[in-house]
Structure formats: C-alpha cells, structure tokens
C-alpha cells in the first residue's frame, strides 16, 4: 500500500491547519503551534512547510482578507484537501495500531 509520507513537523503543521479550519494562514499557524506545543517556531520554517504540503497536494490555498496591519496585502488561507485528510487519518491509525500493540505492563510504566 502506498502510504502518505509525513515528517513530524509536517504532521504538526497539517494538523494545525485542520484545527484552525477556515482561518489558517502563516501567522495563525505559527502562533497556534507556538501556543499549543510551546516550542519556538521559525516563521520561514512554517512557510516552507506550508508550501511543501501544498506541493504534495495535502493543502490548497487561496488569497484573500487584506488588512491595514498587513499594508493592504492579502493572506494566503490554507485548507486541508481530501488527500490531506486521508494522510492525517493514515498517520493516526498507524499510531493507534502501535499504541494498541504495546504490552500492558509497559503501558502502565508510562503512566498511561
């Protein structure tokens, strides 16, 4: 089975876009990741990842929503495509399979 290949950071970004639903663009995605994960994320890193995900077909984008704060420049809003959703589900199911396969005592040790 040909499966989607997602890097860890890509997965985080893709998930964040899905979380933000209609309002995902560069700034919100960056801030959301920073707040939720507590890690400092480079602005350009997020942009690069978004672009790469779009190239892979997991995201689609459209330009709209210029504000004065942005000097009249539009935002590029991202939304998850069907392929993106499938990729996320794939990743999740693999994780769950792995979790399920954990021996109970190990699970206990981890405090789960």
């Amino acid at each position, binding site marked *: 089975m040909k499966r989607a290949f997602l890097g860890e950071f890509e997965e985080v970004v893709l998930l964040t876009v899905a979380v933000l639903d209609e309002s995902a*663009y*560069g700034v919100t995605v960056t*801030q959301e990741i920073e707040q939720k994960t507590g890690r400092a994320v480079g*602005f350009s890193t997020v*942009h*690069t990842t978004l672009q790469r995900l779009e190239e892979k077909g997991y995201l689609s984008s459209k*330009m709209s929503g210029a*504000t004065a*704060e942005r000097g009249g420049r539009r*935002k590029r809003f991202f939304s998850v495509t069907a392929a993106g959703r499938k990729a996320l589900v794939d990743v999740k199911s693999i994780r769950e399979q792995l979790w399920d396969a954990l021996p109970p005592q190990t699970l206990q040790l981890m405090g789960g």
Partner: protein
Amino acid sequence: MKPPQLADRLLKLFCAPNRLEEIQGDLHEEFAYQVRRVGERRAKWRYWWDVLGFIKPFAIKKDYSTTQLTNPIMLRNHFKIAWRNLIKNKGYSTINISGLSVGMAVAILIGLWIYDELSFDTYHQNHDRIAQVLENQTLEQGIETYGALPFPLSRELRTNYPDDFKSVVAYSWAEQILAFQDRKFTRGGSFAEPEFPEMMTLKMRSGTRLGLKDPASILLSESTAKALFGDTDPLHKTIKVGNKYTVQVTGVYEDLPHNTLLKGLGFVAPIELIFSDDTDHSYMNNWGSSSFEIFAQLNPNSRFDDVSRKIKDVFRHHTESKSQPALFLHPMSRWHLYSEFKNGVSTGGRIQFVWLFGLIGVFVLLLACINFMNLSTARSQKRAKEVGIRKAIGSQRSQIIGQFFSESFLVVALSFVLSFALVQLVLPVFNEVADKQMTMRWSDARFWLLSLGFSLFTGVVAGSYPALYLSSFQAVNVLKGRFAMGRLASIPRQVLVVVQFTVSVTLIIGTLIVFRQIQFAKNRPIGYNREGLINIAMNTPELQGRYDILRNELLATGAVANMAEASSPATNIWSSANNLEWRGKNPNQTSAFGTICVTPEFGDVVGWKIKEGREFSRQFPTDSMTFVLNEAAVKQTGLKKPVGETIRWHGQNWKIIGVVKDMVMKSPFDPVVPTVFMMNTHERTLNSIHIKLNPALSAGMALEKLETVFKKINPDAPFEYKFAHQEFAAKFAAEERIGKLAGFFAGLAIFISCLGIFGLASFMAEQRTKEIGVRKVLGASVANLWVLLSKDFVVLVIISCLISAPISYGFLEEWLQKYEYRTEISWWIFVAAGFGALLITLLTVSFQSIKAALMNPVKSLKSE
C-alpha cells in the same frame, strides 16, 4: 510603527515574486503582534531574524522568474533565430563570416609569429642566465658595439670572476667540410671550449656533453650524423674536418630548433683544433686578434648589470688600443629581439617588428569587426520592426541585447572554425615568406585560452554596437512608423568606414615605401661588375699556396676570363683594423677600416674602377708594402692628395699607390665601408677564390669545366661556389620579407574593407530601389545614378586618404631613419596609394550601383 525597511528591501530582493505578497503581509502582521507583545525593539530583531530565515534556496528567485537571460529555452531560441537570420540573408552572412574569418586568421598567424619571436632561444634551459660578452669601442664615428673578442679574454674572465660566472666559453662559427670515407659535406658549426654543450644544454641523443674534453673529438648534430653515417652508429667513428683535423665522434645532439640563434649548428668541435699549429701558444695568448665570440653563464646570485659593471675594463687593461674597449653582458633573452646598438646603447631591433605586426594584427581584426558592426546597423531599419514587436510582447532590453549578441557569437563561432581552416591552409606559405617553422599549437592550453579569449573579445566588439544600439529603439515609435534613422544615424557608420580605409591606405603606402627602399638600394651603383662573378671558399689546405697552378689550370679550360684570390668574398669584408696612422691624423682618435688582401688580378676580376694612381702589379716587387684605398677611406683620412702618401700600420710604412671608386661590399643600405686593399699575405690570409666566368660560355658549361679542375686539385672537398649576384640579393632578404608581409597584410586589409563597402553599397542600393525607379522614370541616366550612389563612398575614401597620409609619413620617416642610404618619401606615393584605394572602391561600389541603376523602374515601382 513600521518594520525595518532595509529588511523589507532585502526580502524583496531574495523572495520569489509570486510569494512576496503573502510573506510580506504575514511578516508585517506578525511584527504588529510582536510589538504589542514584547515591544518594538525586540519585534524588530525578530523581524530581521524572520527575514533572514527566508533567504533560503526555496524562496530565492528561480523557476518563478520570467526575465532570466540564462534560461536555456530562451538561449536556444536566440540561436535558432540567429541561425534563421543567417540563412535568410545569405549575402550578408557570407560577407560577415568571410571577412571575420580572414581577420581572425590574420590575427592567429600574427599571434603565432609573435609567440615564435618571443620564445626565441628559450630552448636552452639556462636561457635566463646566459649572456654574450660584447665590447663598446669609442671610435671617430661614435661608439660602436662589437661581438668579436680575443681568445685569452675567455680564460681571464673565467679565472678572475669565479663567483659570478658558472662558465665562460669562447666560440667561433665556421663552415667546414666534414668527411667520412667518401661522403663529404660542408656544414656550418662551431669551434668552442668544452663547457659549451653544457651551457647551451644541448640534448644528447648519444654520447655525453663532456665529449669535447678530448681535443681530437667532435659532437655532431643529429642531421649531420645522419648525413654522414646514415643509420649506422656514429659514436667513436673517425671523421676529417676541413681535410685537416682527424677527430672522433664523441656525441650526437638533437638539432637545435628553428627559433634559436644557434640553429643550423651542424657540429661542435674543440677550439684547440684551431690552435693545433700554434705550438708556442702565441696565438692562443694573442690579445690583439679579435675573432671569437664569448658566451658566459652567470651563477644564480649574480645579476647581469652588476657583472657588466665589474668586467667593464678587463679588456682595456690588456690592449694599447685608444678605442677604450668597455665590456658588457648582452643577456640571451635580448639576443634576438634587441640586437641593435647605436652609440653603445641598445636601440631595439626585431622587437619593433613584433610591435608593428601586433598592431597590424589588431587593426586587421578591427576592420573585420567594423564590417560586422556596419552591416548590422545598416540593416537595423529592417529589424527595427522586429525589435518593436519583441518589446511590445514583453521582451526586456537585456533580452534583445542577448538576442543580438547570440547572433554575433554565432557568426564569430563559424568564422573561428573557418579561420582555423584558413590558417592551416596558409601556414606553409606564411612560414616560407616569414622564414619560420611555426605550427598550430593544438596541444597548448594557452593557445586555446587565448583563441577563445579573443573570439569572445571579437564577439563582444563586433556585436556590441548593434546589440546596444538596436535594443535602444522605442517600441512605440518603431511600430507607429514614426521611426526614422535620420541623417545622424549614418555618421558612426561613416566614421567606421573612414577608419577602415585609413588603416588600409596606410598599409598600402607602407608597402609601397618598403619596396621603393629595396628598389632604391638595388639600383645603387655598386662600383664593380657582378656579371658572371663567382666565389669559392678556400676551405682545405690543398688550395692554400697553390695559386699559380690553380690559375693556369683554370685559364686553360677557357671557361674562365680571369681569376684572383682575396681575403674576403666580393660581397663582404671579413677583417678590419683601427690602428692605422697617417699624416695629419688626430692622435687621440681611432678610425676603423676594412682590410682586404688581394692578388693583383683582383681588380680585373671584379672590375673595379681606378680613380687615381694605379693598381697592384707584379712588376713592382715593392707593391707588397703598398695600399690601394677606396674613396670612403680617402675621405676618412682627410688626405687631399692620397697617392704617394704613407700610412703607418703594424710598425711599417705603407705607401698609397692608388684610389678606387667605392664598391658596395657590405650592406647596400649602409654607406660604403672605408677600405684598404693590400697584397701582403702576411697581414691577411687569402681564403676566397674569385672567378670571372668567360661570358662566351653558358654558366652551366663553364661550371662543369671548373668542377673538373677543382676535383683534380682539391679532391677532398665538394665543389661549392657562390654567385656574387645571388649573395648580393640575399642582403635584401630581411627587407623583402618585411615588404612581402606588409603587402600581404595590406592586401587583406583592403580585401576586408572592400567586402564591407560592397555590403554597404548593396544595402544602400536596396534601400533606394524606389527612389532610383522614380529618378529613372523622370529621366535620370545610368551615369547620373551611378554618380549618385558612388559619391558618398568616394568622399569617405578621400577623407581616409587625407588622414592616412600624415600618419604613414610619420611611421615611415622613422623606419627609413634606420637606413643610412635611403629613398625619399615623395608625394606621388601618397597620390598613387590614394588613387589606388579610390579605384578599388569605385570598382567595388560600381558593381552594385550600376546593377541598381540598370534595374527596370517598372519592376521596382509596381511592387509594394
């Protein structure tokens, strides 16, 4: 509150344009947020940090750009269009490519020639440490520089300055008969001291460089060894030199290449051989006879200048001559190119020709580039629409420049390939004319680098004008048809044509003057009769002292009108003296005289003219202590009535019995050498037989009879003779070579220039087709139209002639200064060259203009 502008600008520079908007927007929004959160200062830092984060390969302008010149697809398109343009305009392409390739071929040839000149003598590994010892003598005529020095000087320098000299060798060039069994040849070679092969780093094929240590040995060049021994091993074979010395071959060295001064060195024999008769070493220690060249190799720490200063007075301490000989070193790197001295100072030499031909090469190439530029700009009107449309569609100026440059590079590349073929074709002829052995240096990286560099240069120069000029057209004007070239547009073109013809006419004038100078010197009265005069070297002991036998045998054949012997051939003076004293001479000055010993028949054989007194005669036994002077010698002594005067020389009194008219025996471009003739064989040895052939017999038959006599008397030598008129003609070789080369280049320059105006004329005629049609309808004659179309070019050529006259006059005046005996630069040469250029121009242009004028106006007018 604004984000840092510099960072913004940086972003704009690096960011892909299609992503700039969102990224910049996001950055600005983030900035506003951060200002609220952490304050302006830290927000700015963060902003900078974020911008720098975007300067990464992904965001850098690449695939998204539409204005890249290096885009391979666009480049391919450029060349495709260029190629189609070439095919479409076959005539112009031919003119361009042939002109350029001829220009480049000339540049390559001249480049090879200059390389060859500059690389002279680098064959010797120690070439930067070797020098020749020369002396400056202060004479009445000024300071003269000589290379001939006494033999003991070599030893003196070697023993007194061991720190400075690694080695010093005395050297003497000689033509000798080499004989092995029945094979005999005359070869040029040298007698030298034993360190010579090591100093010159002769490449040994067999044997060693130390082979000369034994006084009865000889080193042979490969070709000499081959001629003597064929394929057998030459080592340890015994051969005879000059039918006198028996020596053993101790080594064979590789032939010296053509671009060394020692080329043609057929053998090297130990110098002791010359002194083998000199049992009491009086000759070996003789400081009075200067007949050797002395070469020295410096130690690594010594410098030529310093050593020159140290050895300056070495010779002076050993001579009583008042000429104050001052020694100095002439480095090997300057032997070939800086060989001329005037008043003791180096005045250049062939280096002038290196500059001259370099200049000509650049100019000829420039002419070809000008053709290209002119034709492109002239046709620019046709392509103006193309440029307009390209611009309207969205071409940027840089793209149009690229387009035109790719056209010029295509033409240059084609010409480059063609020029190689041309050079390959012409090289043998060029080698012959230039007396060189040059080859294409296919395997030399520098050659390729230079070739590519210079085609690039040609491409840029040839393409720059059209590229920069055509691309500057305003699309709006061109497309609305408001575009007109105007009168000013053709001015640069006309200037370039003037430049072309100025160069061409200058070269033509130069060629004419060089040939005039040669002709002038050839027509100079030489004072004796060269007709049927031959000269045979007395190169074996068998010929020495057997004058009467030889003479009687020769006269008995009937092939000889008269015969004499002398110490020099008729076309040279081999010895000189500067210690003559006479009544009224300034005792503080020394003057040099050529000295020639002759037999009494000499005057009759060469046909000299007695001006005063009488010539030598066997009837007066006292004639062995007499002189005959030439006019130049009389002038130098300042004697009013020379006949009957006495001259003191070598401690004896010599009576002047006669004066002969001047004879041109040395360079025909120099004044006649003041010469004294004598009969006394104690002072100078006879070594040259002069024979006047019987004019009643053909030369071939006469020579056959001579050969039998010489074979009988001198069986060990090959019969070799030299005609005086051939020897005399050889004195013009250098000048004729320059003349031929200059003529060759002048011809090519004119050819290229004519190609150019041929193209321009055909273009003009094409442009004015309608006008000519209308004029014809209104009654203009063919002659009228011909004048109309040719006039412009004629004016340009006349201007060129006016400019080139003073330029060439300046150059040639300087060149002629070099010759004491020189032609005048008369005005008619300029007129002739001008008319020549004009005639060629008219012929070229007329072909086009008459063709245009003969065209049927119905045809040219009906088509729209």
